């Protein structure tokens, strides 16, 4: 390095204030005075190109001169551009001696990191409908929105002549956390590949000490991130399978052993009938009683009493009904001729049932007119109910899909703004 190297200070040629240059490279075209709004030509002795007085500096937790490491690269914030479309946001121009220029955008508490790319999209982003695919490089984006953005504030070093009031047409397509941003001015069209950054990562990168404002809304590039729910949902998935296998095993192999089957004719059922004795050997496990009627467009209420040594130990009622017919949409049916009851007995031994059709109705009138039906009863002992496993499987299934459901709800919110506009 030459010892005769010259040092030169830079002051605004319009107002004389010291200018905070932060080391942008040779592509810097303008230097924008934060004090008086003068736009200075960085290549022509900082001649004043324009001046925008009374600029309102937008709110932003980062400022020109800050340094931070993003994507493993050291960057310095050298310029700031405030923009307005439906809301206001800030584009911060970053410079790295090794990676050149990039943008860090801040809007409603959200950050995106953007760099220029020179790929050509397959498809016209200016004509695509919302959610239609757009292919750029090896990424597939979905069309999001188009809008016009106006510059409201300029400060620091910039690679182009930016003026307050300048407008650009913007188009965005997304593949969270990626966003393709296309900016079209009268002079050129530029593509930027943006990536959503978590605010905590930006705060750490720039060593911000003050808490960042809370994020508002969902940024188009913001990925759905819910690690805990995702972990819980993922953990639940194998258990859904395990419970399904257990349920299948119970259904196939633990249905118990039939110990009695009896047919009760219609008159006996109306008058009440005591069944023949049947023996329950294992009183620790459930007894299943299956009842099968022959109701047709009718219902019946059955009173059932379990008896042991001629004493009543358990009774219950069961309403059954079966209806079918044809209408405009074809055949229909509802109800069932089959019902089940489960109970335990106090001790091993012989038992009987008393069964009686106490109420019923027939046809459309469904009056108190006991319909003719016979009943077949089947008793199984050592029965294992899959009931709790069914409940558990439903619970696990809900947990397993909770992450996907939450993601779907999140995506619907993400797209709501642009799909409503589209409608």
């Amino acid at each position, binding site marked *: *390095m030459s010892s005769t190297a010259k040092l030169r200070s830079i002051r605004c040629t319009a107002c004389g204030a010291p200018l905070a240059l932060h080391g942008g490279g040779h592509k810097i075209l303008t230097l924008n005075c934060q004090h008086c709004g003068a736009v200075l030509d960085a290549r022509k002795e900082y001649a004043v190109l324009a001046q925008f007085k009374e600029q309102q500096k937008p709110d932003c937790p980062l400022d020109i001169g800050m340094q931070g490491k993003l994507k493993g690269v050291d960057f310095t914030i050298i310029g700031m551009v405030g923009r307005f479309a439906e809301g206001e946001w800030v584009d911060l121009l970053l410079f790295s001696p090794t990676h050149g220029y990039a943008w860090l955008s801040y809007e409603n508490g959200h950050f995106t990191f953007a760099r220029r790319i020179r790929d050509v999209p397959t498809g016209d982003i200016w004509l695509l409908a919302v959610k239609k695919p757009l292919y750029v490089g090896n990424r597939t984006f979905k069309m999001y929105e188009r809008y016009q953005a106006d510059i409201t504030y300029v400060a620091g070093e910039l690679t182009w002549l930016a003026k307050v009031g300048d407008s650009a047409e913007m188009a965005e397509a997304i593949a969270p956390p990626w966003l393709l941003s296309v900016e079209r001015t009268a002079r050129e069209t530029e593509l930027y590949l943006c990536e959503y950054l978590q605010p905590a990562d930006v705060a750490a990168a720039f060593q911000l000490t003050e808490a960042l404002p809370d994020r508002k809304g969902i940024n188009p590039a913001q990925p759905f991130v819910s690690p805990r729910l995702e972990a819980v949902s993922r953990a639940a998935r194998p258990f859904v399978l395990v419970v399904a296998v257990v349920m299948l095993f119970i259904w196939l192999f633990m249905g118990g052993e039939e110990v009695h089957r009896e047919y009760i004719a219609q008159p006996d059922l109306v008058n009440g009938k005591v069944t023949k004795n049947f023996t329950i050997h294992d009183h620790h496990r459930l007894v299943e009683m299956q009842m099968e009627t022959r109701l047709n467009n009718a219902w019946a209420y059955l009173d059932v009493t379990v008896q042991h040594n001629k004493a009543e130990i358990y009774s219950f009622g069961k309403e059954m009904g079966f209806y079918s017919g044809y209408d405009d949409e074809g055949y229909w049916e509802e109800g069932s001729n089959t019902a089940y009851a489960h109970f335990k007995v106090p001790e091993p031994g012989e038992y009987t049932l008393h069964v009686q059709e106490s109420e019923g109705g027939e046809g459309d009138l469904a009056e108190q007119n006991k319909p003719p039906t016979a009943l077949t009863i089947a008793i199984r002992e050592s029965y294992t109910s899959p009931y709790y496993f069914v409940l558990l499987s439903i619970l696990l299934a809900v947990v397993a899909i909770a992450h996907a459901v939450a993601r779907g709800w999140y995506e619907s919110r993400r797209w709501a703004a642009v799909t409503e506009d589209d409608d």
Partner: protein
Amino acid sequence: MLNTTHNCPQCGSLLPLNFRYSKLAVCGHCSSTLFLEDAAVRLAGKASVLAEMPSLLQLQVPFSYQGKTYTPVGHVRYRYQDGFWDEWWVLDGADGCWVSVDEGDFAFEIPRPDWIHPFPDIRTAQVGQTVKRLTQSWEITEKDLCTCEGVQGELPEHILPGERMGYLHLSGPESALVTLEYPFQGEPMAYEGRWVDPFEIRVTT
């Protein structure tokens, strides 16, 4: 480490500067922004060596891009109107290509002497015009003069410090790029390639 003992021209405070990588500093006392004028140029001009500037690529330090590993074996720096850019001759096994680096704009190019005949006349060529080759139109996106500042390592061509040439950059579809070089002495040459994303370049450390 190249330390100096400059004093701030505004307030006279001692500036603990290290100009090895930066051309700029802010005085800690009066906040004046200071920069070093053309230091890199002078160093290169005196010694015909390349001033050490921050660079993702380094001689003999392999890097990978899209699954391939390249090793820079030669380095040329060109100065042009806006500043300078670097050209690296990198080897991928027995094959070589040029990697052009200008403030984060990276392009891979290979020599294509027969890319176009006759070469467009650089004297009349203008930025924004199109150059037709076969059925493809290429837009002239840059036209400038440059001077070789220095060379390092092994190069596939005779390139000497001080050599001057004109050049055109042509942009095509899918990040395609063609550079047409017009040496002041010698035949024009074409290089074809494409822009690449520096964030996809991984330097092996």
